[in-house]
């Protein structure tokens, strides 16, 4: 029961993150939404692996790998956003500028 | 005993909703950041209660949370200076 609550919470987080990723235009907010989706997926996977009583260590290892990959991607994305800001004085993609 | 710790942890967690409200309403950036620090401290408390109710191996997480909250505070303070590279004390003087 407890595990189901956390798994459904993960599903909800993915939905919230996808909403924010598609809705927001500011690129930093999209990076942030990307991280919310990522942690939602991890929570979903972790909760699914904990249903048998004893936690399954394989998802834990996958999730740690996933967190590192997400942090790497976020860092590159943030650096790109800042470089784009210096080059074009914009915090959005050209097609999203009002 | 562990049920009692879980009860305390739940109450402590609920009380952090107040901090969430402060993050939402601000109004200044420092208000929001201080509220986040409060959630960090409350989080450490919750971890300790969970550890008391379950497995003491959890306290490593409390240590890391406490440490990184302090680092985040420094990052916030630096971010208040021009280009995030100065010292707010200097900027206050000048």
């Amino acid at each position, binding site marked *: 029961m407890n595990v189901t609550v956390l798994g459904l919470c993960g599903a909800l987080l993915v939905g919230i993150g996808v909403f924010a990723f598609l809705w927001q235009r500011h690129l930093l907010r999209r990076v942030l939404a990307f991280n919310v989706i990522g942690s939602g997926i991890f929570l979903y996977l972790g909760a699914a692996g904990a249903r048998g009583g004893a936690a399954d260590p394989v998802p834990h290892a996958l999730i740690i790998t996933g967190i590192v990959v997400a942090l790497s991607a976020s860092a590159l994305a943030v650096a790109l956003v800042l470089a784009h800001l210096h*080059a074009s004085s914009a915090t959005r993609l050209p097609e999203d500028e009002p | 005993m562990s049920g009692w710790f879980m009860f305390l942890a739940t109450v402590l967690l609920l009380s952090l909703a107040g901090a969430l409200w402060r993050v939402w309403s601000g109004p200044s950036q420092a208000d929001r950041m201080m509220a986040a620090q409060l959630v960090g401290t409350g989080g450490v408390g919750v971890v300790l209660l969970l550890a008391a109710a379950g497995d003491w191996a959890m306290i490593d997480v409390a240590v890391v949370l406490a440490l990184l909250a302090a680092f985040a505070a420094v990052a916030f303070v630096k971010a208040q200076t021009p280009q995030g590279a100065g010292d707010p004390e200097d900027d206050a003087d000048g």
Partner: protein
Amino acid sequence: MSLILPLLAAVPLLGAIAAVLAPRAGKGIGLGVAIVLLAALAVLVGGLNTPVVLPLGGWEPPLGIALRVDGLAAAFLGLAAVVMTGVLIAAPYRGAGREAAAFWPLALLLWGALNAIFLSRDLFNLYVGLELLTLAAVALAALSGSAGALAAAIRYMVFALMGSLLFLLGVALTYAAHGALDLAALPGRNPQPTDALAAGLMTAGLLVKTALFPFHAWLAPAHSGAPAPASAMLSALVPKASFYILLRLWFEALPDLGRPGFLWLMGALGTAAILYGGVMALRQARLKLVIAYSTVAQIGYLFLVFPLAGGGGAAQPWAAGAWTGVVFHALAHGLAKAAMFLCAGLWLAAAGNDRIEALRGAARATPMAVFAFALAAISLMGLPPSGGFTAKYLMVTSAFAAGAPYWALGPLLGGLLAAAYLYRPIAAAFAPVEPELRPVPRGQQAVPLALALGAIVLGLASAPPFDLLQIGRPEAAARGVE
């Protein structure tokens, strides 16, 4: 063999590390990696009779990760090796400045990511490989640092991140349902109601990464905004990696999930991509954008594999032909597109811009490059005797044999469109005027020529690659998905 597979997976990564340590020696390191990998591939292909499996660290799946080489993997490893060798020879970066210090290690990391993907049999490992590929590709797309390239790189990253997350979500759901990540374990799984959702999420993510219409918006600006050697890698190789995973997923891991509606949708999107990409390529004034939109169209052909090699429960004699044809198309397009972008890079350097009018008279100034471009164009149009022709011939005959001639419409119209949009640069190059281009050394023109000749040879001598692809060919490629 126990040494060849680790070499293929790890030598590009070691090369990248060496290039980080010695940025000035980047080119030498890259060429050294190319020699080792070409030799390793020659030994591998020479001795490959049945698929080779290597459980890493001696840990068999499901506990560990296994690498595997069959004909398909060998073909894509070979494509990556040939294109990367050409790109590394052609790339002009020297010294230890910003661009050189970034280009060599990133190009080698991109190669390492491609090889890791082509060898891997583990869904989560494929995710990590895709992320490595994406980060290296985005960084290369931004390499010039211009405002346009940075915006294109961010758009690329936004799409790629969304694609990765969807793929990862499908992988997570697959593990949750089956406790397995190994592709070989999935056909024998105990079917679950969540399988269709997991497969759909993985497929959606891979479609975004492959830039299938309508997820193509990021491709043309990113591929045309990158420096030419990077464009060659991004266009010829990177979308192939996610398509390769789609092939593995649908023809090996989950063929039982293919529904007629899904197969039809893939074919329809592929046909739409062929037509849309062709029309857009026709409307561009800049050569690199023509070539980039051509990639949007050429990616569409790949997706005809779903309706042509899938559908129907009974044995289909044409399914194997369609599957082989699509793989041929991927190979021929890779070679031809790399040649075209390298030519575009030469002309951009020689003319100062890449407008099509600037090419007028290029046939006199750079005859070898124009010849290379024309050969590559022959393959993209699907004219004999090129690899592109073999591929289209196989696709079109399977479409008629399957009683679904409408799937031949895309390849036939696409060939006409390709002829139309490639005619303009070639006509400009042969215009009888004094060229305004600065002359280009012949040595630099030789690399795109060799790659374009490769695309032609693939059609002239199609028997050896054809036989190679039959090694360990998935059963579903002959029997049909579903």
